[in-house]
């Protein structure tokens, strides 16, 4: 249920991270989620897709890696130069 809020947090962080790197556009963001983080990766992926659609970040992709314990961290951001 809170995956919507988490997805929104990812988008905000991507915007912040990208602002300093203009005019590059973000294409993919990688996050690491542990099994004890209380986040359902499928649900997060779905929420992320819904929030990205029609936003300034479309077609940003989300890549989820399995992390240790309760990890819920950013890993990388892929950018494309125009």
């Amino acid at each position, binding site marked *: *249920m*809170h995956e919507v809020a988490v997805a929104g947090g990812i988008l905000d962080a991507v915007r912040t*991270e990208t602002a300093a*790197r203009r005019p*590059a556009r973000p294409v993919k963001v990688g996050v690491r989620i542990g099994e004890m*983080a209380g986040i359902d990766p499928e649900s997060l992926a779905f929420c992320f897709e819904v929030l990205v659609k029609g936003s300034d970040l479309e077609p940003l992709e989300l890549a989820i890696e399995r992390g240790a314990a*309760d990890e819920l*961290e950013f890993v990388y951001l892929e*950018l494309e130069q125009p």
Partner: protein
Amino acid sequence: MNRVAMEGKVLNENERAAAELRADFARHGVFVVNLIGSPGSGKTALLERTLESYDSSRRVAVLTGDIQTDADAARLGRYGFPVRQITTAGACHLDARMVRRALEGWDLAGIDVLFIENVGNLVCPTSYDLGEAHKIVLLSVTEGEEKPLKYPGIFFKADLMALTKIDLLPYVPFQLEVAEANARSVHPDIEIIRVSSTLKTGLDGWLEWIDHRAAAIPAR
């Protein structure tokens, strides 16, 4: 295409707010626990028995979270201690900013123990640090002993599991030992107490757990 490393926690905003709260709690010597459990697991009832047992000189306060209504604040407000309701208007968990807002106007220096009763939910509140010293998970015997395996996150993060409603054990197929073994398989060091808020059994162990840890916090 180039890939840049991105650091930090996904819930960075909450982490920041929680760190500020934790620093404030430490500065004022406030011991804070975050109670998490399913709807109907007995969070409010346990807090009622807790407040009822304290004499009026105790410096305790309660924040109680729900999606709608201030029913819990009304229940908990009868005991003469400061209680505030946080109504999340749809959100399935409390976050650090809601706690910060709810604390506005309270003098933290006048509080020794703060109980935060989270929104009834075994999943979402797990991810949100509220600046507490300990997360405590409640599991009632009407819920089934496999819950620690199905919802491992909260049992992993909680320092204490309170098995509640043990007065109902004769009527339900719940096996305490199985539930405890399941919790320990997720979190070997989790402490466990068994309580009934209705019959007031096991409350001494609960109150001692709180007092013992609260006493370890340097008073300011």
